[in-house]
Structure formats: C-alpha cells, structure tokens
C-alpha cells in the first residue's frame, strides 16, 4: 500500500479552500474509485485521468487505486481536480518523486490526449491557495498570465501531462515563446471607440452622467428612442476612476469564476449589460449545488446597465433591491451558502411609453394614457426610490448635429477624479469612499448643508420628497459641490440636486 497527497482548491463562491487529494494504491483487483463527495463532472475525472495518463505514455497502476478528496464533507464540483488527481496517483506509484507535492497547488482539466485545459475560477483559487500557505502552483499554460496576477507564488505553466512530469522531476520545461508576450497585462483603456466625444448634444444628460460618475450615484435615463440613452450609459465606465489593485483583483476573480476571458488585470471598472429577457438566476447568480455569479456580480465595482428597464420581468428587477442596499448577494442551496460581492452602480434606461414618443413634442404617440401609466408602473416605487438622478433625454434637434466635437471622456474623467479625491479626504476614517454610499444618518448628522435646507423643507411638506428622498438629494448636492470644488454645498447645489432627483418632467408625466 503506497500513498501520496497532492493539493488542489475547492471554490465556495469567491473563497478558495484547500482540498487534499489522497491516492492509495494496492489491496485489491485493479479498479479505480473516487470518494469524497464528488459531483458527476468530477466523478468522470477518473476516466479522463486514466485516458490522459495512457496517451502520455505513462502507466496507470494495475491495482486498486483509491482516490479520496478531503475534507470529505465539502461538496466538490468541477473539472479542475484532474491534474491534482494524476499527480497524486503518479507519485503514489513512484512514477514521479513526491518531494514537490507539499506546498504545491495543482489546477487544470485534462484532455484525453494529456493536454492541460484552462479552468474556470483560476484566479480566486490561487488567491485561496496563497492564503492557505501554498507557495507553488502548476496551472495550464494558457492561464499563466492569469496566474501571474497572484504575487508571491512560483507558477509553472504546463501544456501537457508530460510537462508536469518534467516539472515534478525538477527538470526545466521549455516555455513557448508566445506566453511571455500574450500574458502581458491588457492595455488599460479597454473600451476603445467608446468615447463621450461621439455623443452629440444632450448637454444635460452628459452633465447628469458626470455627476453620477463623480458621486457613484444610481441614475435613470428616460426619453424617446434614439436620443442616446444607451450611447451615454455605455460610456460611464470610461469616465469612472481606475480601480485600485485590490478592487481590480476582486473584479478579475469574479470574471474568472463566471468563465469570462481574463487577459491580465484590468483597472477599468466593468460594464455588465444583460438583455431584458434575463432570468432572475442569470441576474443575481444561480445554478444547482454551487451557484455561479450573475450579471450583478460581474458588475461589481462597475456599472450594471439595464437597457429598456420596464421590459425586465418584475421578479428580476425586485431581486436587485437587497443587493443594491447590501452590496452583496447571498445564494442558498441545500449544499451550502455562497456570497458574491455585488457593489455595482445601477444605470436604468427606459422609453416613456411602449411606442416611445409620449414625451416628444410634435410627434404622435399612439399609446393611451392608461398604457403609458402601466408602462411607467413596471418600474416599481422601491426600485425608483433607490435612484438618485432621473434624467430625461430629448430627441436631437438639427442644430446639435452641427456642433463641433463634444468634450472627450478623458477631460470628464479628470474632473470626476478630482471630485472623488475631495470625497476621499472628507470621508477619510469612515467605511465609505463616495457620496453615493454614505448612509442617511451620517449625512444628516455630520454633513448637513448650511444653505438650501428651506427648499428641502418645502418639497417635503408638499409631499414631493420622502425622507429617503431627502438623503438622496443631499448626496447629490455634495457631489455637485465636489465637482465645483467648493467646501460646502450652496443653496443652488441643493436646488439642482432636488431637480435631478425629481427628474423634471417624469414627475408630471406619471
């Protein structure tokens, strides 16, 4: 009876937990059994591994091979254990030395020909491995770039099982010339061709977008089709400040888990724009056993853009309410509970009515008043109440198109950056970093404006503004004053913020 242990990583949400793969050989008829709560895909690893070993010209032990994944109580899922299983079996049968097995983490799926295939969630797995004190990693060659984002680990890329055997023997593996070039971090401006300079006219909406970016406010664009709602919303990530290293790692880890391509660390905030046919599960995350992250988690630290918002199913929209408040989403299954971060900035876009022209002067809207009201009511009060800025877009007039080129994203981004800096100083020592996140109590106690409160009082007494609405107005007022470089919101800031909150015409149209 000979035994060897290799280590891989199991993922619970974005948390990586070390999994020990024990292989014991001997004591019965030739057979291979895999125990330790594997799911179907993982149980098939047994057959994949045998075929891969055979086609690499190595021998699978002709004895009873028992493979155990421990801790046995944790449900394990996925195909990335293949490489670790083979490493343990080969070490137990003496084909490779076991010296390197401790403190090395093995990740990769095997092809029947012995090739190492890329796996989902490599980055969070390696972060978990490093936290658990593992110092070396063997990963599929195509993912060396992703793996090298984890500092402080020795990473070996292997193209095939043959490469892995060489590595475990301590012999050098020829590195293909492409890997160094291909895995260089992606260019920082990852949204080419999406510049604000392309948006003609709409000065009010551009200003609303800038304020939303500066204070991280949720924003709602409504207006006639073709006015540029989508165009504007897609350019929001381009004017947001770059992500810090820690934030960028969080974002990239979720991308990796969601199975999206990871080419180096992107400092650009992500944009996630699900189609309005999205299911609840695809939006907030879901799936059997271990749920996958959804669109709101992919938008973590970035922008969630819901175009044609009233067309989304009410259930899908209502599912956003809790993540909007808590900045994370907890999905529970019989097998366990998973929490994914979901701190996103919400951008909604909608037409005023099904035909789209209800608010356009001079055009004929074919909808009845009842239809228009029904359409507006699809966005429920609780969702709209969380929106700080409502902005109407008017259809373009000819004169706008002859304008000289509008201001480019870089100029706007610079103002946004300065405004964020001012917020950072003011909120230093608190858990928040932007105006949009500051809770109402703190806002009213420590950050009450000296001017303009009379306007708010009047709006509240007229029933135009709720208590939560007052907080929203104050947040936007602070952002306006940060953008203007003042120390205190002026009465004019508060009035402007109130108008942005009430969304001029929508309040009268609905």
């Amino acid at each position: 009876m000979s035994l060897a242990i290799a280590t891989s990583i199991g993922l619970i949400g974005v948390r990586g937990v070390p999994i020990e793969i024990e292989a014991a050989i001997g004591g019965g008829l030739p057979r291979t059994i895999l125990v330790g709560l594997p799911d179907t895909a993982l149980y098939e690893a047994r057959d994949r591994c045998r075929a891969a070993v055979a086609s690499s010209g190595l021998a699978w032990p002709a004895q009873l091979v028992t493979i155990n994944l421990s801790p046995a109580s944790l449900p394990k899922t996925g195909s990335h254990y293949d490489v670790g299983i083979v490493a343990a079996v080969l070490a137990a049968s003496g084909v490779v030395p076991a010296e390197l097995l401790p403190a090395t983490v093995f990740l990769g799926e095997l092809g029947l020909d012995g090739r190492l295939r890329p796996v989902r969630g490599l980055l969070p797995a390696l972060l978990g491995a490093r936290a658990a004190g593992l110092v070396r990693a063997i990963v599929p060659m195509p993912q060396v770039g992703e793996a090298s984002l984890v500092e402080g680990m020795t990473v070996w890329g292997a193209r095939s099982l043959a490469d892995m055997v060489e590595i475990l023997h301590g012999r050098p593996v020829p590195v293909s010339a492409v890997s160094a070039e291909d895995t260089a971090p992606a260019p920082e401006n990852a949204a080419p061709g999406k510049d604000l300079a392309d948006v003609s006219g709409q000065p009010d909406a551009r200003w609303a977008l800038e304020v939303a970016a500066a204070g991280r406010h949720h924003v709602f664009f409504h207006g006639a089709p073709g006015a540029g709602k989508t165009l504007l919303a897609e350019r929001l990530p381009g004017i947001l400040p770059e992500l810090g290293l820690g934030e960028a790692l969080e974002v990239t880890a979720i991308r990796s888990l969601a199975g999206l391509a990871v080419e180096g660390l992107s400092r650009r905030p992500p944009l996630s724009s699900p189609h309005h046919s999205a299911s609840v599960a695809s939006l907030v995350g879901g799936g059997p056993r271990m749920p996958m992250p959804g669109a709101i988690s992919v938008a973590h630290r970035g922008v969630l853009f819901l175009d044609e918002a009233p067309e989304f199913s009410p259930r899908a929209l209502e599912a956003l309410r809790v993540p909007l408040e808590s900045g994370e989403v907890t999905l529970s299954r019989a097998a366990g509970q998973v929490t994914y971060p979901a701190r996103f900035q919400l951008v909604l876009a909608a037409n005023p009515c099904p035909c789209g022209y209800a608010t356009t002067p001079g055009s004929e809207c074919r909808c009845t008043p009842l239809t228009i009201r029904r359409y507006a009511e699809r966005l429920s009060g609780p969702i709209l109440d969380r929106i700080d800025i409502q902005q109407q877009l008017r259809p373009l007039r000819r004169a706008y198109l002859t304008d000289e080129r509008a201001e480019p994203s870089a100029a706007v981004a610079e103002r946004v950056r300065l405004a964020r800096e001012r917020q950072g100083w003011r909120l230093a020592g608190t858990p928040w970093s932007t105006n949009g996140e500051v809770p109402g109590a703190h806002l009213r106690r420590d950050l009450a404006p000296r001017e303009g409160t009379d306007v708010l009082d009047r709006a509240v007494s007229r029933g135009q503004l709720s208590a939560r609405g007052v907080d929203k107005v104050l947040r936007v007022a602070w952002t306006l004053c940060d953008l203007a470089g003042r120390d205190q919101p002026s009465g004019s800031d508060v009035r402007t913020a109130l108008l942005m909150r009430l969304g001029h015409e929508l309040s009268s149209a609905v």
Partner: protein
Amino acid sequence: MDRQTLGKRGEDLAAEYLEGLGWRVVERRWRCAAGEVDLVAVEPGERPVTVFCEVKTRSGLGFGEPLEAITRAKMARLRILAAQWMRERHPRTMSRVDGIGILLRPGWDPLITHVRGIS
C-alpha cells in the same frame, strides 16, 4: 493460440506457480451446476486455507489488465461456487477467493499477478 489453449496454458502456469509457493493444488476445473472454478488449492500453514482461484489469461494489454476482467457478477458466482465446494467436501479449513492474472505476450516471459482475497 486460440482461446481454449490460451486459457489452459494460463491455468497450467498458475498451478505451477502455486506449487512453487508450496501450495497443494487439490482440484482443477471443478464443475457443478453453478459454474466452474479454475483452481482449488490449499495454502499450508498453522491454519491451512482452502483457496479458490480465478485465473485470467491475456495475450496482450489491448483490452486492459487480465485481472480487470473479473467483474462483480463473476466474484459473486465465485463465492457461491466456493460455498458449494465446501459443502460437498467439508474440509476443516477457512476459505478464500484469489485472483491470478497471467500476461502471455508472444516473445516475453509470462507475467503473473496474484491478488489475495478479492471478495
């Protein structure tokens, strides 16, 4: 070599091998209504054991290891046969079922794998 001769040759080799271990082969190809046992031998010692051997012979590895061919159903049948034999002869010993795999590749020395206590 056809299937029967290959099997026969394998059983001869297995019997030779067991006698080489000092065991006494008491029965070859014992048949009854339930089926056939390839070899019955007695392992000597302080407490002798009657061992029922299933011999699997292969001329190559194209279809896997010889011993891999012993399925669960085959093992269940071997247990029934062993019990039957013990009832008929009632030797005063314990019993056990072993598997013997023999690889007879042309031009190679025969390779014998012996796994004790397979069921």
